[in-house]
Every structure is written in structure tokens, then in C-alpha cells.
């Protein structure tokens, strides 16, 4: 059946399965992705069905994982690497930033490194340190990488398909606290462009822009605001690099107000770029400065404080009100 209702984790699992089926060069690799099926069970059953040669449990060394994935890509493979949690990508950061991102340009286009790095990211699951971070800025600032994050099951399925098919390295941020949220996945649909934003909800008074786990919060905020008579448009950015400035511009030219929401710290978060760029593009349209709702300039706090650290409904609505007050 082409249309199924799936949780995001399962949609990703299906997407990996499809990719492994369609292309013998696709590999899945990472810590515990085999028998265990990953700590979130996202790769559940894949090793059983595709064997240890294609679904590879690696040593516990992220630089080694990404570095060998680059080598495998140079040999013609298309590795899909899993980093167990956001906070554990940094041992691989050098390989990602100095090698993976630059290899194609360094070789004047003569080689390609189609590696996808899947990273469950973000907070809200009550975890210990390093399990709840949102480091997307640290990748999006680096040219040569593409950075995306789905917010729902259908995008999770399709965007991963597209990321694997892309000849560029893609950092694929998975909203871990939404893994169990269900949505319809049509495996025969024609997907939207990987790097285009979509309008998750139409509205006329203000634009909320978000991606990954925050889209749901924004949709809830829009629904709540509607009860107060405010019409909020919600954009699901989907792609952080490149960012779909055109879509945001179009929306803001209509609504004249923009609030950007992400879990990552506000300071140099992707909202900074969006605010700077949209202000430049829409200087005479904006009725209010672009406002940002995000994490603080502080380490992700212990679980008992995360509700206060994370942008929630109230903080989004507060920003909406502040914007509308201009």
C-alpha cells in the first residue's frame, strides 16, 4: 500500500529500507544500528534483512565512522551514517567540516561524497547531558554541507530519500522527540523539493517560521492565536542550508511580521540569518522587527529545567504578541 500512517521513526526506517532496496550502493552505518536497531529503533530490522555488510555496526568512534564513510563514498558507496545523539557528533566534526564538506570543491568537482549524516536532535525527552542539543548552526554555516530537518512523517520519508539521492553531503537532523508522532506517508507521492519551505498553515497577520520539532509548537500557537482572532501563517522551513528565503519573503510581504522559532540558542542561531536576510529583503514591508524565540546562551539544562529552556507555546505566543504590538 502506498499510503500508510506511520510514526516518524518508522517512516525513516521505511525510507532507509527503500533506499537499501533500490540501490545496492546504499549502506547504513553507525553505533548499534545492527541487531539493536539503534537506540531509537530507527534502523530496526534492517541488518536482519540486508546483512552485516550493508547495515554496519561500527566501532565507537565518530571521526572514524564519518572518515571511513567518506572513503566508502569515494569508492562509489552511498553511506547513511547515524550519529547516536546530537551531542556526539563533535568527535566527527573535523572530518565533516574539513573533509566531507570540501572534498568535492577541492577536487574541482572530480569526486563526490554523497554521505548522509542522520542526527537525532533536540530536547524534550528528559535525557541526560549531550542528548538534547540543536547544533544546526555549526553545520549550516559551513559551505559544502546541506542541512535539513523534517517535521512530520511524510517529510521524514521523502526528505531522507532525497538526501540519499543527493550527490552532496547532507546533515539530516531528526526531531527525536517527535519520533513517535504519526502522520500519513504516501510512498508513491511526488515529493516537494528537498530545500523548499512549505506552508504548514496559512494566515495573514504574522508569519511563524520553524523547522523540525518546533513546527508542531508553531501550529499549536497558530491555533491558539486563532481563538484570539489572530491569523498566523506557519512556514515549515524544512531546509536550513540552503534556506528558502524566497518563501519567507513571500509570506512576510503578505503578513509584514515574522517570528522565527528554533530550539537552538538564539545567538547566532538560524533565526539570526533569517532575520538579517529578510529584513534586508523586506525592509519596507516589515511592521515589526523580526523576533526570535529559541534557546538561551547556556548549556542545555538538566531535564527538570528543559521545559523552561525550550521554546513552548507560551513563549511563541508571547513573541507573537510582541510582534503584533509594533
Amino acid at each position, binding site marked *: 500500500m502506498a499510503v500508510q500512517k506511520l510514526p516518524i521513526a518508522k517512516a525513516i526506517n521505511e525510507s532507509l529500507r527503500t533506499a537499501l532496496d533500490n540501490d545496492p550502493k546504499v549502506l547504513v552505518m553507525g553505533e548499534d544500528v545492527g541487531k539493536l536497531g539503534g537506540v531509537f529503533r530507527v534502523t530496526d530490522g534492517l541488518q536482519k534483512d540486508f546483512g552485516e555488510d550493508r547495515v554496519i555496526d561500527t566501532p565507537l568512534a565518530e571521526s572514524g565512522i564519518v572518515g571511513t564513510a567518506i572513503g566508502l563514498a569515494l569508492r562509489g558507496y552511498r553511506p547513511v551514517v547515524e550519529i547516536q545523539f546530537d551531542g556526539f557528533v563533535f568527535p566527527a566534526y573535523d572530518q565533516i567540516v574539513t573533509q566531507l564538506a570540501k572534498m568535492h570543491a577541492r577536487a574541482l568537482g572530480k569526486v563526490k561524497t554523497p554521505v548522509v549524516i542522520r542526527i537525532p536532535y533536540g530536547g524534550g525527552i528528559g535525557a541526560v547531558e549531550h542528548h538534547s542539543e540543536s547544533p544546526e548552526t555549526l553545520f549550516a554555516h559551513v559551505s559544502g554541507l546541506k542541512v535539513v530537518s523534517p517535521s512530520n512523517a511524510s517529510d521524514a520519508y521523502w526528505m531522507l530519500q532525497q538526501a540519499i539521492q543527493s550527490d552532496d553531503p547532507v546533515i539530516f537532523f531528526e526531531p527525536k522527540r517527535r519520533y513517535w508522532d504519526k502522520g500519513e506517508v504516501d510512498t508513491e507521492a511526488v515529493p516537494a523539493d528537498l530545500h523548499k519551505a512549505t506552508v504548514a498553515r496559512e494566515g495573514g497577520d504574522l508569519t511563524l517560521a520553524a523547522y523540525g520539532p518546533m513546527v508542531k509548537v508553531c501550529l499549536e500557537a497558530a491555533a491558539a492565536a486563532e481563538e484570539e482572532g489572530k491569523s498566523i501563517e506557519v512556514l515549515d522551513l524544512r531546509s536550513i542550508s540552503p534556506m528558502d528565503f524566497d518563501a519567507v519573503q513571500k509570506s512576510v510581504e503578505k503578513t509584514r511580521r515574522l517570528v522565527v522559532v528554533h530550539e537552538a540558542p538564539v545567538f547566532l542561531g538560524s533565526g539570526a540569518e533569517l532575520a538579517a536576510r529578510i529584513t534586508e529583503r523586506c525592509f519596507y514591508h516589515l511592521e515589526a522587527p523580526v523576533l526570535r524565540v529559541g534557546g*538561551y546562551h*547556556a548549556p542545555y539544562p538538566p531535564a527538570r529545567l528543559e521545559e523552561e529552556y525550550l521554546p513552548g507555546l507560551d513563549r511563541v505566543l508571547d513573541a507573537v504578541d510582541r510582534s503584533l504590538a509594533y
Partner: protein
Amino acid sequence: MTVDSADSTAAAQKANPARGRAAAKKSAKKSPGKTAAAKAPAKKAPAKAAAKTPAKAAAAQSDLVQLVTPDGKRVKNPEYDRYVADITDDELRGLYRDMVLTRRFDAEATALQRQGELGLWASLLGQEAAQIGSGRATREDDYVFPTYREHGVAWCRGVDPTNLLGMFRGVNHGGWDPNSNNFHLYTIVIGSQALHATGYAMGVAKDGADSAVIAYFGDGASSQGDVLEAFNFGAVYNAPVVFFCQNNQWAISEPTERQMRVPLYQRAQGFGFPGVRVDGNDVLACLAVTRWALDRARQGEGPALIEAFTYRMGAHTTSDDPSKYRSDDERVSWEAKDPILRLRAYLESQTDTDEGFFAELDAESESLGKRVRDVVRAMPDPDLMAIFENVYADGHALVDEERAQFAAYQASFADGEGA
């Protein structure tokens, strides 16, 4: 006995059957039956440090320092006996008590997690001997860099066990002062603390002190660049650091052969310091070997690597389900080597430890359990403003600004509620 007979190389070969088999056959032909220690081929090819072939690695299984057998018999060891020659029956009972109380604490924490009082727990079940033996070998002025499972070592260092629970409850990222007991915070990013330990040890040497430093990590962590760089820094600077690896056979779902091709203790040699594999379920052997390593560090002989061969009897953490990846038989086979039963058998057969001791200890366990429960349940949530505390030691304008905004925002609710 599954694991005892499962040798790393053989298993690693399994994962790559064609190439592996070829390799095994070929090497076996070249040097049939040679043990790791007998390096005769070195004469034929003087500059070749021969790889361990499967056959050799199997032989290396006997390279395990053991002072007390699983059924409680004391065995002689000419090299390490001297490090525990002076040990009294009272001290042995002390080690027993440490292990029992640590296990009890650990069980209590697991239970508290099930009750929702903790978000997560990483149990040390099965690793009590490795931790208590090594922990009791440290001197007060030594410094310990743990990973996240060293509850037994923390106990030896005098850290109140309830302090360990804060991070697992989600009220902090580390609830003790590292300098109060020379026991650093738990480190979640696997392997990083090995470099901190090495740097700390470099500082000890600079100070001209004769303290030593010990870094704990797991078999999985041994694959991390940071751990390997630490080996090299330790060697190059001849730092007084002991690398203590608890090889509990598993890194979450990955067996040791996914992390290494030959037994880990052998890795030390190529960096220029000795490596020893010790029976990690034999508290006396762990004490002796760690004393040896700390002694030589103190005396300016540089690092040593200890591989404590043990077993993670429980799940990786309370979030884990080991039935997905390992057989129960394996765990059952390790039960026969239980570190606590082993020392109890020894105490009962070779010392005059009476029932009273065990009964008293049971009572002590009970009251420890109760105290842990009470403390955890009473552990308050942190103040909201803690988000902004200690981000910097000297302050930071942006943190100040965000703190103020946050406070005002919070106050706006209070106002609202008040109204």
C-alpha cells in the same frame, strides 16, 4: 563460559567471513600454535611486530591475572602477590562490604528509575570488583576521572552515593565538587576524560608531587581517538596516569570484537607502556594490579593500561533492552564468576568471618537503601534561574541580558496568576 572462549579476533573474522577465513588460514600456516608471548618469528623478520593471529589471541586468554578463583580459592601469582601481601582479613571484609553496599545502592537506583524518580540509570551490576579493587588502590591525593558507571569507585573515594543521582534524576549535570574527593564529574562524551586525566597527571608531575591519576573508560571507549591520543600523550610525557578499562564485553549492543581485533591490554605496548589484563571479577587481583600501576606511576615510570575483564550483567542503562542483541546464556555463565559470591566464598572458607558480619552488613544495606530512597525523593527541582548560573565564571553580557528577560517573562506569569 561463552565469553571466556569467545576470542576477539576469531569473532572479528566471523564478521567478514571470506577475507577473515583466508587470513586465519594463512596466518595459522605461517605460525602454527604460537602464543602471543612466544615471538620466535621476530628473529626471522626482525623488524616485524607480528599481528596476533586467531590462534595466538586464543592463547592470550590465559594471560589473565587472577588471585582468587571463581569458587573462592586463592591462587599464587609471583608478580602481583606482593601488592596484597599485607592485606588483613578485616580489609578483605572491607572490600566485601564495599561491593555489597555498592551493589545495593545500584539496585536501589535501578528501582528508583522504575518508579519514575530517576530518568535513567546506568547500572554497574557485575563490575563491583573491578571498581572497588581499583578504587581502593587509590590514595587520597590521587585523582580519579570516571566515565558514567563508576559508582563503586565514587564510593571508594568517599563521594556520597546520593550525589551521583542528581544527573540521572535530571536536576543537574554533576552534583558533587570534584575537588572534595579528587573524583571528577561523570563524563558522557565517551573517551574525553582520558585526556583530562593525562593533562592532570602532567600537572601532577610538574608540581613534583608523587600522586597518581586514574582514568576509567569502557571497552567501547577504547576505539575513540581521544583515548588513543591520551595513551600517546601519557607515554610521551611519561605522565603518572593509569588507564583503567573495564572491558565488560559490551558497548551497548556491540560486542568487544566490533571494537578491537586483539585483546585491549596489548595495545599499551605499542605506545611504550605496559598493559595488563586482570580478572575484573576478582577484587583482590584488581586491587593488586592497580596498586602496581599506581606505584610505578608515582615512581616516575609513566602510564600503564589495565584491562579489567568483566561483564555487564544488566542492561546498558535502564533504557536498554539487551534481549535484542545478546543471549541470556552468556549472562548466566558469568553469574558463576560473581565478584561478591567469590569473595564471600573466600571469606567463609579461609577467614574466620562469622555470620554476624554478614547479618550486620545486610542491615547496613537496608539502611543505605532507605537513605537513598529518602534523599532522592526529597531532592528538589532546581531553581529555574539555574539555567543561567555558572555558564561563565566571570559573567557574560548576553547571559545577563537573557537572564533578565527570562526573569521578567517568568514574573509576567506570576503577575497574571496574582491578578
